[in-house]
Structure formats: structure tokens, C-alpha cells
């Protein structure tokens, strides 16, 4: 080829090389960016795993020193005892479950009923009042609810039930029900709203009235969503700290009487973590409680997830 042609071919090749290099650089940059975002996404798993690992690492010395049975087969929690320290957390677990159960007994019928009302019955105007109201209820901090438990619910319970004081499991249940309600209401309402219109129309066409349609078609069809919402509310109740700390009396005895003072797992940690020297058996024992709490809420959330997954699959 001629000299001129060779030069221009070389120039073209140079340009090609440069643009290829640029393209490679851009791709590398893109990959780096993507990897950066991936790491951020991975954060969630890292944090969850980190919490689990840390709780276990800090709880392990207590297990090693005292044995698992001390914790799970004992109903007396008295680490600062006059004589022998005891680390039985059964009574604490029972207390946590009691207030949670009590809260669900109140919040489930109320919550699902309210959700059904919003999705089936409420006029647009009522909806505009109710839905923000539920969001406001959800925003009330737990310490304020606990405060009202002491000043408001306490005297009411003692008068109503003729007991000498109102700092007990019942008080805690009522307060936790108030805190779990927004979760149950909004998620159940979502579930009910997602029921295909065709189901409802078919039911009405077959002669059922609106109530029967609700009870026999909508609710069963939305059941998984409703159950998932209940489990989430339950998880919230088990993990609640300030409310029960302020209103349940904090007596660590094992009891099934709702009118007696109890002490939940969360309250125990909140009371004792501040007064325990770091890295003592008592300190590690508190992490045992934390670990059990974590596992319990994890399991509840997992079950709720599985139910929601199944629900989404079925609907598809």
C-alpha cells in the first residue's frame, strides 16, 4: 500500500485501540460500581449474621460455665442472690409469652375486624380518617405507651378487677395490643384488598350477601396474609422492651396469673445490663437471654415469611 494509506491505516488502528481501551476502562468501572452496590446489598446479611454471631459469642461463656440446663430447666432468675446465684430463664420466657398471647387475644379480633371494616365497609371519607389514624397509632413511641400504662391503665385495672395494683401481665397485654394493632390492621387490610374482585363478584352472584362473602370467601382467601400479619405483630410484641419494663411490675416469679406482676426477657436485659460489670457470668447470662430473644423473633419472622411466600405462589 502507499505511504499515505499506511499512515491512515495506522491512525485508524490507533483510534480503534484507544476506543477499545476506553471501552474496557468503562466496563471495569461499571463492574466496580456494580460490585460496590452488591457489597452494600450484602450488608444486610452481614449485619444479621453479625448480630447472631456476637450474641452467641457473648452468651457462650455462660453456657460453658453453667451448662444449658441451668438456663432452660430453671424457673428462678436470681443472679445476684444472697446465697446461690440462679440463672433459670423459664419464668422470663413464660412471662414474655404470656403478655404476647394476651396482646394477640386482644389485637387479633380487633385488628382483623378493623381491617375488614376498612377494606369492605368504610366509605371513602371514613377510610381517610382511619388509615392515617392507624399510622399515627404506629408512630407512638413505646416509652409513651409504657408511661400511659403506669398512669392511666394501672388504676383502671386495679379498680376494675379489684386487685390491689395494676402493674401486671394484663396491663402489659393491653399496651402490647395497642402496639401490635397497626401492623395487624395494615397488613391484613392489604391482604383483604388483594383478594381478586372476581371471587367476591362470583360469591355475590351465587346469592351470598356481603357478610357471607367476607367471612366465607374474602377472609379465607386472604388468610395467609392475615396470619403473616399476626405473626409479625407477635414478633413485635415479644421484642417490645420499654412498654413492659414500665408497666408489668418486674417480678421475676413464674406465674400464669395475668393479674400478677411478671418480668419479661426484654425487661430483664434492660434492668440489669446497666448495673452489671462487663464480662462477668451475670453479664454473659444476659446475652443468653438476648440470644434466645433473637432466635424466637427470627423463627417467628421466618414462619411469617414462609407463609407469605406460599401465599404469593398460590395467588399466581
Amino acid at each position, binding site marked *: 500500500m502507499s505511504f499515505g494509506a499506511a499512515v491512515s491505516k495506522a491512525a485508524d488502528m490507533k483510534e480503534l485501540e484507544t476506543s477499545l481501551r476506553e471501552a474496557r476502562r*468503562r466496563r471495569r*468501572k*461499571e463492574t466496580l460500581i*456494580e460490585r*460496590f*452496590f*452488591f457489597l*452494600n*446489598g*450484602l450488608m*444486610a446479611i452481614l*449485619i*444479621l449474621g453479625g*448480630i447472631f454471631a456476637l*450474641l452467641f459469642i*457473648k452468651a457462650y461463656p455462660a453456657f460453658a460455665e453453667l451448662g444449658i440446663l441451668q438456663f432452660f430447666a430453671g424457673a428462678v432468675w436470681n443472679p445476684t442472690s444472697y446465697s446461690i446465684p440462679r440463672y433459670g430463664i423459664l419464668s422470663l420466657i413464660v412471662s414474655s409469652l404470656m403478655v404476647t398471647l394476651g396482646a394477640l387475644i386482644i389485637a387479633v379480633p380487633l385488628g382483623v*375486624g*378493623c381491617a*375488614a*371494616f376498612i377494606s369492605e*365497609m368504610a366509605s371513602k371519607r*371514613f377510610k381517610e*380518617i*382511619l388509615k392515617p*389514624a392507624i*399510622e*399515627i*397509632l404506629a*408512630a*407512638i*413511641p*413505646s*416509652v*409513651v*405507651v*409504657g*408511661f*400511659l400504662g*403506669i398512669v*392511666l391503665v394501672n388504676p383502671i385495672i386495679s379498680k376494675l378487677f379489684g386487685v390491689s395494683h395494676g402493674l401486671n401481665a394484663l396491663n402489659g397485654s393491653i399496651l402490647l395490643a*395497642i402496639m401490635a394493632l397497626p401492623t395487624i390492621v395494615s397488613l391484613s387490610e392489604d391482604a383483604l384488598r388483594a383478594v381478586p374482585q372476581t371471587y367476591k363478584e362470583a360469591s355475590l352472584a351465587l346469592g351470598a*350477601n356481603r*357478610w357471607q362473602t*367476607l367471612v366465607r370467601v374474602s377472609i379465607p382467601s386472604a388468610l395467609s396474609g392475615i396470619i403473616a400479619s399476626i405473626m*409479625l405483630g407477635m414478633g413485635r410484641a415479644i*421484642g417490645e*422492651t420499654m412498654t413492659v419494663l*414500665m408497666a408489668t411490675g418486674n417480678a421475676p416469679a413464674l406465674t400464669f396469673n395475668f393479674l400478677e406482676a411478671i418480668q419479661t426477657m*426484654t425487661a430483664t436485659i*434492660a434492668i440489669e*445490663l446497666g448495673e452489671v460489670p*462487663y464480662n462477668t457470668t451475670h453479664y454473659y447470662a*444476659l446475652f443468653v437471654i*438476648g440470644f434466645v430473644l*433473637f432466635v424466637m*423473633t*427470627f423463627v417467628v*419472622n*421466618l414462619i411469617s*415469611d414462609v407463609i407469605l411466600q406460599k401465599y404469593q405462589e398460590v395467588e399466581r
Partner: protein
Amino acid sequence: MSKKFTERLGFALLAACAVLVLLFLGIILFDIFSKGIGVISWNFLSQPPKQGMTEGGIFPAILGTFLVSIITVAFAVPLGMFAAVYLHEYARPGRTTRMIRLAIRNLSGVPSIVYGLFGVVLFVQLMHLGTSILSAGLTLGLLTLPWTITACEEALKTVPKAYREGALALGATKWHAIRTNVLPYAIPGMLTGVILGLARAAGETAPILFTGAAFFLPHLPGSIFDQFMALPYHLYILATQHHDIAKVRPIAYGTALVLLGLILLLSFSAIWLRYRYRQGLKG
């Protein structure tokens, strides 16, 4: 019983449920407002507590809550945004993505006291940050993170696909497309989520109990390594540990009202923002 009767009864029950829930809310708001409003004054909001907390105001607690919230936001917002961008823009369906989503959902269910435990070990002890605004802010940041991620993802979902695809069609790289054609439109929605998460974090007590909150400090915090007073903790101590509970009860109500007011203000601004943004996007 006739069908019609059961229907009427059933719906009446449902209405009763709704009314009861509204009643709960009404009683709570009424009690706090009526017993707290008498204490609120400019003095109350701007003065520190005096005479052993029986007089004066709660300014340091308001400031403390504000300072911790800044740290919380500084930590949770960027992380949350980036994680949301990953989940929505880059993630491919598969086991890893499912696990990430599962982890996020589970993190939002972890009890606040467990976050507190984690914060004490990680930030206060291991990282030697001590009981401070920083430790407490980071702990609250962790608590807020799942919420922030979810909210940012929701915001990204509302940006129409066309925006993204248009940019890609013109030859932009993926990141470039996201940066110029998706993020700017998702920011307001993200802001809403951030403010709502902030409102929640401001009311949390358990995570800050052992990571930095103090009942009485004679000086305002001078750096993020200092302890601080905070509204929810202040309310807790006024209601249970103070040495003259009866006398400070009105101040406790006032604190509750200020805390509630702050949270509601934040929530409403976030909701208003979301509303305006949705209107904007429609047009």
C-alpha cells in the same frame, strides 16, 4: 337467624372494632395532650432542667435527640440507598438476592433491646467509642437500616421503566443511566422513607439505654464522643427513677407531648412530601 340479621350484626361488630381502635388512639392523644400542654412554653423548650429536674425545661434532651438523629441518618441513609439501588437495579433473581431480602425482613423484626446489646458490644466496647452520641447514633442507624432500604426501594420502584430504558437506549452505561435518569426522580421518595425512619428512631429508648443516654448532664454535649440526654430516656427516668415522681409528673407529660409532637411532625411532613411528589410524578 336470618341472613340479613347476621349481616347487620357482623358489620356492626366490624364497625365497633374500628371505633374501638380509634378510641384507643383518641384516649392516648387526649391524655398526653391535655396533661402535657399546660407545661409547654418557650421556656420549657429552650431551658435546661433546674432544681434537680423539678423545674426548668428539657432543651438538652431535645438537642440530644436531634444530634443522635443526625448520626443515625448519616449512617443509615447512604447505606440504605446503595443497598436499595443494588436490589432494584442490579440484583439478578437467585438465591443470594432472596437471602438478602430475607435478611432485611428479619432485621426489621429484631427486638430493639437486642440492637442495644449489639451496640454495646460492637460500638461501645470493641470499637472503643464508649457511651456516646456516636455509639448510640450508629446503633439506631442499624435499627433504621432495614426500614431505609425498603423505603428507598419503594421509591425506586415508582420511577417509570421508560426513564431508565431511554437512557440505556441512547448508549449510556448502566450506572450513568441510574445516576442521571433514575436517582434524581427517586430522591424525594427516598427522602420520605428517611424521614419516616428518623421519626421511628427518635422515639426508641432501648437501643440508647446503654450506648450513651444519660439522665442528667450539667453541660450540653461538646462532641459526638460525649454522652447526651434524649427525650425518650428523659421521659422514662422522669416516670420511674426520679426522686420526686409526683412533683415531676407534669414535666413527664410535657416531655411525652414534645416527643409525640416531634414524631408526628416528622411523619406528617414525610407523608406530605410523598403526596406532593406523587402529584409531581403524575404530571
